[in-house]
């Protein structure tokens, strides 16, 4: 097994009813790098991302075949605790979705239910550390009791990242985390991804080619449910091997 692989997927297919959204994908996700999933709408990249922490379990009719292992552990095994899995493999969504609670509670909620803090002072420390890592602390430290929904879009997204970080995950999945943000807020998230790299394995789905090129070290190109090409971001964007990859990233697709 590849030592660098945090997640290994083998022959993974995902079905929605009779419709096959992901077709026999095998991939190793590197533990120290940021991996970008790119591809046209409907190519299956988000579906595959959601298979990595079993978010598809919540979708009726969704079925996953093949094998996905997190540090060698089969995440679809019957004994796998899905709540625990989602703490280990956190997720940040396209639209910032803070809980309608205080900024503090948004971050404290996860550690509390997972029993990660022994008392109030430990919980305070986790909240501060998570907000600092998410690059939000200085902006919110004097208003931790305010509702998370009072923040700007970019701040809300960083709050969601702080919330994901708070439970000390091993992997962070990001599904188009900047698509609802302005360029400055986007740049802050990208900078944050850069800072978090190495501490967590990060997988990001993005429609923005430049963003994929900027933030990731590995890039996977999906098309019609298949993994077409996977390699170093530098190779994919300067000299892709597959004509379909080339046509997509150069703007010739379809």
């Amino acid at each position, binding site marked *: 097994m590849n030592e660098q692989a945090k997640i290994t997927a083998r022959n993974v297919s995902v079905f929605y009813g009779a419709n096959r959204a992901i077709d026999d994908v095998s991939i190793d996700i590197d533990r120290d790098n940021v991996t970008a999933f790119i591809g046209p709408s409907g190519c299956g990249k988000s579906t595959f991302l959601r298979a990595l922490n079993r978010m598809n379990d919540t979708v009726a009719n969704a079925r996953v075949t093949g094998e996905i292992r997190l540090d060698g552990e089969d995440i679809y095994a019957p004994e796998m605790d899905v709540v625990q899995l989602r703490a280990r493999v956190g997720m940040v969504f396209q639209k910032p979705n803070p809980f309608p609670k205080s900024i503090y509670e948004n971050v404290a909620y996860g550690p509390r239910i997972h029993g990660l803090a022994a008392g109030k002072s430990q919980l305070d420390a986790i909240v501060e550390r998570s907000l600092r890592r998410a690059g939000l602390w200085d902006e919110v430290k004097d208003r931790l009791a305010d509702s998370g929904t009072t923040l700007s879009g970019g701040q809300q997204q960083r709050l969601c990242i702080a919330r994901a970080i708070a439970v000390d995950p091993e992997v962070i999945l990001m599904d188009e985390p900047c698509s609802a943000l302005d360029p400055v807020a986007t740049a802050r998230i990208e900078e944050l991804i850069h800072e978090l790299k190495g501490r967590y394995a990060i997988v990001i789905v993005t429609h923005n*080619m*430049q963003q994929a*090129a900027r933030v990731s070290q590995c890039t996977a190109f999906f098309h019609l449910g298949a993994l077409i090409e996977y390699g170093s971001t530098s190779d994919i*964007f*300067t*000299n*892709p091997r597959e*004509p379909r*990859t*080339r*046509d997509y*990233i*150069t*703007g*010739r*697709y*379809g």
Partner: protein
Amino acid sequence: MATGHEHTVKAFDDDIAQLRALISQMGGLAEQAIANAILALQRDDAELATVVREADRAIDAIEAEAERLAVRIIALRAPMANDLREVVAALKIAGVIERIGDYAKNIAKRVPLIVSETRIDPISTLPAMARMAREMVHQALDAFAARDAEAAVRVCESDRALDDYYDSIFRTLLTHMIENPTTISQVAHLMFVAKNLERIGDHATNVAEMVYFAATGIKLTDRGANAA
């Protein structure tokens, strides 16, 4: 590397086509400048030498235009993969062709310096070398126009023959100087002309290397290393 179909944003194709047209136009002027410079030398034609110098200004102007366009494409279109390689290659090729134009101009500048006395015999060996150098430039530009990596390799391989020709002319001129010391100042200029032609061949090789890189994504100099 022709992909067989167009960008979704058609204006992108127009920009790249325009950049390629500028390179071809520059290359044509540079080829013509080499031919005219040698003809001026042969015929002792000061007027034609002036034409070469003026053509060099035109080449410089097109280079500046190509550079502006390439920078604009990079800024506005953010080209990727083969598109990016092509724009970067075009930018560098424009600079190299500008240098080729400079060498042609340098040859033309020597025309008035060699006219004074009786024409010297060794001058007759230069047109054939000039034809070779010009042919290399022509082939390199054809390879660029066709995005033809194999044609680019052939251009690089032909540089050896031009280098050999240069060595042979060098020895001929040296012998001539030893035997006719009164012609030394004249023949020294011819040596520089031969050297300029040899350098033009090197630059044509550079163009071909960039054509190869744009088409394949592999440095031509790395290709041998990988094969070995």
